[in-house]
């Protein structure tokens, strides 16, 4: 893919100048090109990244994302701790190479560098640059500062969907609790995507798949014990990583389990919760895995019913991380077992998938609310 860039403009954002520079890039791209250039946009993609190595990584990822999802990308690189306030912008176009059967496709990127107090001016700088009639996605590549009215909330207000990654949370329990609190207060808050939730799709699909079979569906009401094995995170080894917490919360919210406020226990590497249901209590355990897998990742999930029907349903990730195995055991007999390839999507690919979704993901929001209740139970708070 080819890239052409104009040098940064002056210290204030001149929207008219930016639009003119973008037009100039289009003209350059189409000069001498018999095929013509396609300007194709299906969305506005706002990206917030703190200044540093992460910002360079995000810029590289944008090349792949915009190739697959043509858009106007507005990359906001922020350095709020800088002593001097500064705001400048740089315009780039990214073009795919034409082929015998397809024309060249170009996308636009405006990179806004904001330093010091000028960081709070970013929302007003990006708003006029948004392409009309197209959805706005905000990829917040940092820990979301949910209470930050000046920046995070203003950008959220102009966005149709906010994409975060709870794997980046420094305080998984605290941050999830905050998100749950906001969702509780403002159910019409902008739609949220969580890349950590997207990483659970294969797990959720395979767990759900067991109970597509009519014969097994009645087991859902018989479940009494669930174990989620995970690899602890290096930054918070004592906390249940957000991914595992969300998976457990998803099961609970989908199956109508209600966490018992005083039931959460923590002993050594095991955290457990008791849930009440319409049928009987259920214990959900989160436990460290002994296998060598990446920190924060889920190793295995087992759903068991220990009564007469006696069955267990297991989804397990292979050590190498490239496969995922499912098995159904009834008594001592293994009924089904299969191995599937396990897609390990990179961050850029995950973002690509998220920007295909419009509207609220209510199942995720309910999982977050339930996770919030579990976190409060663990902290001994009602």
């Amino acid at each position, binding site marked *: 893919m080819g890239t052409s860039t104009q040098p940064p403009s002056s210290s204030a954002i001149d929207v008219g100048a930016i639009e003119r520079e973008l037009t100039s890039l289009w003209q350059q791209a189409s000069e001498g090109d018999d095929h013509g250039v396609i300007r*194709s946009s299906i969305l506005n993609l706002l990206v917030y990244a703190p200044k540093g190595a992460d910002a360079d990584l995000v810029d590289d990822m944008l090349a792949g994302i915009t190739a697959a999802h043509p858009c106007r990308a507005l990359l906001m690189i922020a350095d709020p701790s800088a002593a001097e306030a500064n705001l400048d912008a740089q315009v780039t176009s990214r073009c795919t190479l034409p082929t015998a059967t397809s024309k060249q496709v170009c996308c636009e990127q405006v990179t806004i560098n904001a330093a010091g107090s000028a960081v709070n001016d970013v929302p007003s700088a990006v708003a006029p640059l948004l392409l009309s009639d197209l959805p706005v996605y905000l990829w917040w590549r940092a820990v979301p500062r949910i209470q930050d009215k000046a920046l995070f909330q203003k950008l959220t207000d102009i966005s149709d969907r906010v994409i975060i990654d709870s794997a980046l949370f420094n305080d998984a329990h605290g941050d999830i609790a905050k998100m749950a609190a906001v969702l509780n207060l403002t159910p019409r808050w902008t739609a949220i995507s969580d890349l950590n939730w997207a990483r659970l799709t294969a797990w959720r*699909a395979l767990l759900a798949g067991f*109970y*597509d*079979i009519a014969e097994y569906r009645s087991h859902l009401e018989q479940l009494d014990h669930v174990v989620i094995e995970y690899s602890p995170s290096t930054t918070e080894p004592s906390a249940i990583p957000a991914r595992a917490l969300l998976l457990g919360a998803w099961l609970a919210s989908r199956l109508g389990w209600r966490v018992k406020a005083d039931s959460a226990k923590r002993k050594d590497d095991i955290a457990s919760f008791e849930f009440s249901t319409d049928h009987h209590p259920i214990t959900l355990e989160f436990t460290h895995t002994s296998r060598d897998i990446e920190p924060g990742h889920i190793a295995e999930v087992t759903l068991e019913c220990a009564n007469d029907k006696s069955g267990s349903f297991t989804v397990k990730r292979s050590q190498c991380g490239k496969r995922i195995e499912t098995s159904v055991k009834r008594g001592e007999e293994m009924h089904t077992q299969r191995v599937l390839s396990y897609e390990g999507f990179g961050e850029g690919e995950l973002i690509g998938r998220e920007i295909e979704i419009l509207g609220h993901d209510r199942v995720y929001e309910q999982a977050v609310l339930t996770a919030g209740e579990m976190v409060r139970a663990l902290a001994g708070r009602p």
Partner: protein
Amino acid sequence: MKDNPLREGVRLERTADPCTVIIFGASGDLTKRKLVPALYRLTQQRLLPAEFAIVGFARSTMSHDEFRDKMKDAIVTYSEAKRVDEKVWESFAKGIFYIAGDVNNSASYQEISKLLDQIDRERGTAGNRVFYLSTSPSLYAEAVQQLGAGGLAKPQGNSWTRIIIEKPFGHDLASARELNVEVAKVFDEEQVYRIDHYLGKETVQNLMVFRFANGIFEPIWNRRYVDHIQVTNAEAIGVEGRGGYYDTAGVLRDMIQNHVFQVTSLIAMEPPISLSATAVRDEKIKAMQAVRAVPSDHVNEFAVRGQYTAGAVAGKPVPGYREEKDVGPNSQTDTFAAVKLYFDNWRWADVPFYLRSGKRLPKRVTEIAIQFRKAPLQLFKSAEQEIEPNVLVIRVQPDEGITLRIGAKVPGQVTRIRWVNMDFRYGASFGVQSPEAYERLLLDCILGDSTLYARRDMTERGWEIVMPILDAWQNSKEEIPKYEAGSWGPEEADELIERDGREWRRP
């Protein structure tokens, strides 16, 4: 618990029921190039359950393991990754079985039945079956009859049984009707899935979205605004070693009567009342029933044929059709056909539909071009010679997308008009890969959705429309017109449209 509460929400697509797919003619090309790779991909995408199996049935003698090895090679060869993970493959291969037998031999069906019962017990496939007829078409009737006699056609208990029948469906109207009668003796129509893989293509499905999700196009989608429609289905390849089959068929039977008519019906149909298979297919057949009969004494005014001679395609010399393997030296088989149809209904009265299809044309392209009437008044006198009609082009392959041709003013003192294309390309706007047509179609059958399959009445109607043309060509004493490989067809095709004051597009 009726529904699975864990399935709710975005991202988790509906998974198919447990089932076994039994492929008749499993040693053939289609199985290894399309069917098993598609089923493998569906499994990896978690769209098929663990309780799934494939049974290959063909004459060649081989064991389960030998068939599995062949299918592994096929998946490696025809997949993008060109490799499979061994443990993943082992798990998938456990669900693949093979029976050597004869379509004409009832003992083979007893073997199939025994194996299916075993698979149901061992793999939990719940008695659900899809029989896929990928054999020679001459064996379809026999296979259907034997499935009925062997007790394999009717589902037991809560299970279901379906049959997918590959094209061609019949050789002419009489044989298509006969085959439908034979099939109906054994299977209910709702069990029958007549495949047309063009309907599985993303852009063909996009036609429905384009027409019925956008409010602005439907008001102009009719005779008041449309001058004519051209449907082009061009292949650059020749018969590719299939001369023996092709010489008995020709392009009118092989492509126009099925694929091209299916695509045309999507353009001509009225909006359905819902997206149910019945509602959509009802509108498609209603449109095709409005097609005016081609008068048998004036066929030449409505249809022309051609046969390619030696030439060059994409810079490479290629032989003529009669020089192809297994093609007779005096063959009169059409490798090109162009047909003009009229739909006698309120929407399309007097709007000609020009359809053409052929082999060894300059490039591979399938497109539908809707040419609108020119503006009623020429206001731009200085640009009078530059006024062209608007054209909406829906490109099915390659480079799927939609183009609208509009006039724009060239900057300057004088009013000059330049005609520009506004493009929407699937590949440019949605970078994700479209599913393969066979993946979509196989999954739809397993899910019980027949929207993208041809119904009995539609297959027969297609034959009814072309029969006068086929009969006229069959009885003609004239030598079939020729066209050089790499050109856009015989001169007669140009005359067909130019006589109406129009011309063929250059796709």
